[in-house]
């Protein structure tokens, strides 16, 4: 789950990271008042859950409260990558001498938490990784206890030769580690971490993604979820415990298992059509989940046919069949439904579906081709 910069700043502050004071506001007048209160210059920053804000003109410096109000007015009217800017952050500006990069992730190869730092901060880190990989130090860490002093020395000496600055950065990195582990993040990033004219170090940006699987431990973070930029179907799917991604095609898919769901989408494309979505009803299924899945897919008017592709393992085909029968009864299905159920309890499912008008298919190829044909009418 992505959270807004303003929320990430609050988490950073809670874990002791040096974050300049700021206010989150929704209109120019409030921005002006915030700038007055914080003292100028300030930075006015669009709060949207996509990258590339700066390039899109969503981040502006203001040297007076009045200017802050004006800049906020401009930014609040913008759309960035299709998302309307509804709030801006007004933050006290820092007189930047040097910009660093620091982030925490989990590394798939070493299977450890990993810290990444670079003396080339303030720019797109993926660009640095491509053009000057030697400017990034990646250090796998222990999952308990945090940074050891020798690791801190290695990281900070990669960033600076100044001992006083290194000491401040060392404390920042430990706090970043603590914040990352403390909120079950999958990413915690400071870009840039800056050295100011007066020799102090500040995290002037904050980005945190949360591991969805860890959210149950952090209800206060779950409450920060912003569904404004999410497809309503995705919101509904999440609430029903389904995994759903909206796409642009015409074949709705209900599949069990993420790999099979992707392979189903790929095969639709392979046979010349486009999938309308990715939808995984997950492992341990229930009829209710199938009903919810059908309801979500039917919201999309561009869906011309629905393909059910189930290979039963922990999912039982009879559960799915019952869900489909329920969906037919309750949702008044008016698009053709092509059903392929095989694996655990497939025989029982076949018995349940016998006598319905659902289009049956034996294999995945047959089902996909059948759904494409049905969609074309």
């Amino acid at each position, binding site marked *: 789950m992505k959270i807004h910069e303003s929320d990430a700043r609050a988490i950073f502050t809670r874990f002791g990271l040096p974050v300049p004071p700021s206010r989150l506001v929704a209109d120019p007048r409030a921005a002006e008042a915030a700038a007055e209160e914080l003292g100028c210059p300030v930075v006015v920053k669009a709060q949207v859950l996509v990258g590339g804000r700066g390039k899109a003109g969503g981040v502006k410096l203001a040297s007076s409260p009045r200017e802050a109000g004006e800049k906020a007015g401009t930014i609040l009217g913008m759309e960035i990558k299709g998302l309307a800017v509804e709030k801006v952050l007004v933050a006290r500006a820092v007189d930047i001498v040097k910009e660093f990069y620091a982030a925490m992730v*989990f590394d*798939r*190869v070493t*299977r*450890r*938490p990993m810290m990444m730092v670079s003396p080339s901060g303030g720019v797109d880190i*993926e660009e640095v990784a491509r053009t000057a990989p030697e400017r990034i130090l990646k250090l796998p860490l*222990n*999952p*308990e206890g945090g940074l050891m002093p020798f690791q801190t020395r290695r990281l900070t000496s990669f960033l600076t030769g100044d001992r006083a600055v290194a000491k401040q950065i060392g404390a920042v990195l430990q706090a970043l580690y603590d914040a990352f*582990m403390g909120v*079950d993040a*999958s990413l915690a990033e400071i870009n840039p971490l800056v050295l100011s004219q007066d020799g102090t170090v500040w995290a002037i940006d904050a980005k945190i993604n949360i*591991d*969805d*699987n*860890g959210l*149950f*431990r952090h209800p206060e973070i779950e409450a920060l979820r912003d569904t404004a930029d999410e497809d309503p179907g995705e919101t509904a799917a999440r609430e029903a415990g389904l*995994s759903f*991604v909206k*796409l642009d095609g015409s074949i709705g898919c209900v*599949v*069990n*298992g*993420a*790999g*099979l*769901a*992707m*392979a189903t*989408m*790929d*095969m*639709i*494309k*392979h046979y010349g059509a486009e*999938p309308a979505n*990715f939808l*995984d009803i*997950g*492992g*341990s299924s229930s009829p209710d989940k199938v009903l919810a899945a059908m309801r979500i897919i039917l919201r999309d008017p561009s869906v011309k046919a629905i393909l059910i592709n*189930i*290979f*039963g*393992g*922990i*999912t039982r085909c009879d559960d799915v069949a019952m869900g489909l029968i329920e969906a037919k009864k309750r949702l008044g299905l008016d698009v053709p439904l092509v059903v392929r159920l*095989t*694996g*655990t309890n497939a025989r029982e499912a076949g018995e349940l579906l016998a006598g319905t008008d659902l289009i049956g298919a034996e*294999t*995945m*190829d047959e089902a996909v081709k059948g759904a494409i044909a049905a969609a074309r009418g």
Partner: protein
Amino acid sequence: MSILVGKETRLVVQGITGRDGGFHARQMIAYGTKVVAGVTPGKGGAKTEDGVPVFDSVADAVAATGADTSVIYVPASFAADAVCEAADAGIGLVVCISEGIPVRDMVRALPFLRERGTRLIGPNSPGVISPGLAKVGIMPGEIHRQGRVGVISRSGTLTYEIVHHLSQSGFGQSTCIGIGGDPIVGTNLLDAMSLFAADEGTDAVVLIGEIGGNDEELAARMIRDGYPKRVAAFIAGRTAPPGKRMGHAGAIIAGGAGTAEGKIAAFKEVGVEVADTPAQIVDIVRRVTG
């Protein structure tokens, strides 16, 4: 021949009194797996309908039954603890079916397992099956057939799909390993490939990959440097948009890395054929073993 599980496997089922644990314990027994014990804290002393004794702890189960392998069907928030409990009780192979485990929990559990020399398959794995010998997991047993193809997959049901095609075409499997769909797993693609490399009962290995991470790219490098078995591959997620998590916590294209195109290209570069559809895997296996 097979790896990881076989006729000698003595299995303990953690979470045996739950809905999934109970159902699949029965399925595994029906397949012929030696399910010697179940564990559910607080229910020690009971027996399942199939006569499997239930213990309060894995340690108790190991002491009483000599279990050497564990399969885990407990809720996500308790699963990492269950894995550690098994390792601490001396279990050598733990297969974790549970999905939705926080990455932090898994990353903290792994050093605990390494110290105890325990191998973990999963989490979020369909399990491991050596057809005809033992099934440890949730895969439908009847689609498998004993033979000489090894299967490694990050997915569950997609594996069934592909295994189904293999079996129907006469290509039986030595062992099929579902390594799990999470970003951090106990046994990754390379680890599993190393296991098959040493297995005399395996002629060819089918790799079923997907978007996210760079395991497949590293596998291609391993093959380039000399891998003793023939390989066929499938990659799911060619149509997946970047930045969206495709069900599996590990299946996400981020920052331009982890795309299906990149993985397919990496395999092709080292001479590994990649199937366009699950059914095509059969043709590739036929060619490489022919």
